[in-house]
């Protein structure tokens, strides 16, 4: 007998049915903006979110940089320049459509955000006169102070503002509801998305929604290689409940993905190898361009791209002589010379020259405005910093004028992972799509981190809004279809199986086994035999472990569903890795049986989808999206003409 009482209703077997024009799955930045733009077009919109919209998603508690808002009034760069720079920087294994939409429409979304109540300007004049501030517009910039296309923003205000706007527009929100499956129907010989199934994670009740069009915005997979049974919530960078259900449900219905063979050596997991994000001494992202010192207090030099030592703090924020702009931020690691900005001397060189570990970030040596903007604004408005870093460290006595904060490992991650401890990080794989952000399944669109090669909050807002528009247009011409009862019954059996057992295996045991399998068979160096064994082992888990999974309540049932999705996505990743028969530097992909790196015939997007139970390989040319500006304009005459630009 448990001594605790389940406080929520028991709604097992209860099925709620609903209908809408546009159904949005996932209520982070992308999903909220998709719902907003579809609702603004007069559509009846339903949003399904696993947590609670007010603070859910990667940016639930904040974001401090809005990248690539190239059309803001102070910008000296064009959308074409920055989007093409990203595509080039990523060796064309890059989502040009996503980057261009971000660069072209990001500023529009910032203005929307402001209208909804989010803060994007220094309205309180706290930084009046600072070098990074435009005193006329009160906008504040980061990284490149000359070109001014990345803005410092008060992201902790964003999700509550969006939530209020959704309510104002009459969007119907189902919270604490996990979307679990996409419903499809063959129409005119093509598979079409006609809605989705979900489960309330408090009551166990099922939700079946019929929709004319659907937008997927459930972020990306996680907990594939990294899992910690003691602190599962800290084993990845993105929110714990975001594990790629959107990928799994898409894969099950034949959706096409690309770049899923790309994974990087872990960069973040506070369940062991790292620390609270933005809570250690470093000089990246939120902390750019903090002064760094070694253990003797000797300052670590910043260099320009030619290796010249920079003399002032201010110089860290300007392009080198003869350079138009530089790139920094979410997906920029070791940029090409052309886009490389100021950076501290390389770690190995520092050690050779006798700089001593540990290093520290020392804000006390910075000009007052730079110190105050890093500690207090950026640390505070960045996700997961207002309470866990700013408030927590302050309570422990940290004062940026008096103290210096330690760095760990050798980079901004403040961690040292092993090669097999991998992650989908930076700009990983995801859904393949066209210029309408439409997937290969008719009626289904995608946005934000669920798209291939994507990242960043401003991009999530821009692509979310865009996908919502396109889905609204699609809903215009499409009928509602009743879901096939057999599909629903099958999904119900799958979802409830673990709760109807009386004992068995806990979800953590399977998650741990999957992550160990992926480390062993899909680690830093891959080959066919390893990958085949990985596929085999996962299949044996499907046959032997899955039928034993056991959950006592809807919460644990949700966790169980997550691991089923992780199993699905791991299988997709293994197949994607098999399909690329060469190694690739930009994809961080090493095959010992195909050591040739980036042979010209393999410089393509390789896609993976499931057809009749089998993984199928496809291939799409890099740059399939064509000329960014003209293709965008061809597809968005309504938006351009609608007074938005």
């Amino acid at each position, binding site marked *: 007998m448990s001594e605790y009482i389940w406080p929520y209703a028991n709604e097992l077997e209860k099925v709620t049915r609903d209908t809408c024009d546009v159904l949005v799955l996932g209520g982070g930045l992308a999903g909220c903006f998709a719902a907003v733009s579809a609702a603004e077009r007069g559509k009846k919109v339903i949003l399904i979110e696993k947590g609670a919209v007010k603070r859910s998603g990667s940016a639930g*508690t904040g974001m401090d940089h809005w990248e690539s808002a190239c059309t803001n009034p102070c910008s000296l760069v064009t959308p074409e320049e920055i989007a093409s720079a990203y595509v080039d920087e990523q060796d064309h294994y890059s989502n040009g459509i996503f980057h261009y939409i971000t660069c072209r429409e990001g500023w529009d979304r910032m203005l929307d955000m402001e209208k909804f109540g989010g803060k994007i300007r220094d309205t309180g004049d706290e930084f009046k006169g600072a070098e990074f501030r435009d005193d006329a517009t009160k906008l504040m910039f980061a990284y490149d102070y000359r070109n001014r296309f990345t803005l410092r923003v008060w992201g902790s205000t964003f999700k509550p503002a969006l939530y209020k706007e959704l309510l104002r527009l009459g969007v119907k929100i189902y919270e604490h509801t996990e979307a679990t499956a996409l419903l499809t129907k063959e129409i005119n010989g093509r598979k079409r998305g006609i809605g989705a199934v979900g489960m309330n994670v408090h009551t166990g009740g099922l939700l079946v929604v019929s929709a004319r069009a659907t937008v997927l915005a459930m972020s990306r997979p996680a907990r594939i290689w990294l899992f910690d049974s003691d602190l599962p919530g800290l084993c990845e960078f993105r929110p714990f409940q975001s594990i790629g259900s959107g990928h799994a449900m898409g894969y099950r219905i034949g959706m096409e993905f690309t770049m899923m063979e790309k994974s990087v050596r872990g960069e973040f997991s506070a369940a062991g190898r790292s620390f609270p994000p933005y809570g250690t001494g470093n000089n990246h992202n939120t902390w750019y361009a903090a002064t760094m010192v070694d253990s003797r207090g000797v300052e670590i030099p910043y260099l320009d791209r030619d290796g010249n030592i920079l003399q002032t703090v201010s110089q860290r924020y300007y392009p080198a002589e003869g350079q138009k702009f530089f790139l920094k931020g979410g997906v920029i690691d070791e940029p090409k010379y052309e886009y490389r900005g100021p950076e501290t001397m390389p770690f190995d060189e520092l050690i050779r020259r006798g700089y001593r570990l540990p290093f520290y970030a020392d804000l006390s040596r910075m000009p007052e405005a730079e110190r105050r903007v890093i500690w207090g604004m950026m640390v505070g408005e960045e996700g997961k910093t207002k309470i866990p870093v700013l408030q927590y460290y302050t309570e422990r006595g940290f004062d940026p004028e008096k*103290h*210096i904060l330690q760095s760990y490992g050798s980079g901004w991650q403040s961690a040292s992972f092993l090669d097999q401890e991998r992650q989908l990080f930076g700009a990983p794989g995801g859904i393949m799509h066209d210029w309408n952000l439409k997937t290969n399944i008719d009626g289904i669109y995608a946005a934000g981190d669920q798209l291939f090669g994507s990242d960043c909050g401003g991009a999530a807002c821009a692509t979310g809004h865009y996908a919502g528009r396109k889905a609204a247009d699609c809903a215009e011409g499409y009928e509602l279809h009743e879901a096939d009862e057999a599909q629903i019954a099958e999904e119900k059996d799958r979802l409830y199986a673990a709760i109807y057992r009386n004992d068995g295996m806990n979800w953590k045991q399977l998650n741990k086994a999957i992550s160990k399998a992926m480390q062993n068979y899909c680690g830093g160096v891959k080959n066919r035999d390893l990958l085949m064994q990985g596929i085999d082992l996962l299949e044996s888990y499907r046959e032997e472990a899955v039928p034993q999974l056991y959950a006592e309540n809807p919460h644990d049932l949700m966790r169980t569903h997550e691991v089923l999705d992780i199993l699905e996505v791991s299988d997709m990743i293994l197949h994607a890795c098999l399909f690329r028969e060469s190694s690739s530097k930009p994809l961080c992909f090493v095959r010992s049986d195909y050591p040739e790196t980036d042979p010209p015939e393999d410089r393509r997007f390789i896609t993976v989808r499931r057809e009749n139970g089998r993984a199928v390989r496809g291939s799409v040319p890099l740059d399939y999206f064509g000329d960014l500006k003209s293709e965008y304009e061809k597809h968005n005459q309504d938006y351009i003409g609608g007074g938005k630009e």
Partner: protein
Amino acid sequence: MMKEFKVSPAASSAVPVTFSDACTGCNICAQVCQCDVLLPDTRKGKHPIVMWPGECWYCGACVMSCPVQAIRLEHPLMNRARFIKAFR
């Protein structure tokens, strides 16, 4: 036959959040948590139970949403980064 739900606190070495006496048991924090770490107590006026402590993502949304500042977030011991006096 209706299956009855059972629940007991999941084992974890960490205690991510604690509640002060100021808590009124409004359960806004339990509602806002995207990881669903907290379970409302069925006794009126009691703070929610940290039922799944290991599942906390340490975002601080619960603390930010508390109308009476009754919640404290505490990092696992191993995650408390070091800081020292500046050299100058």
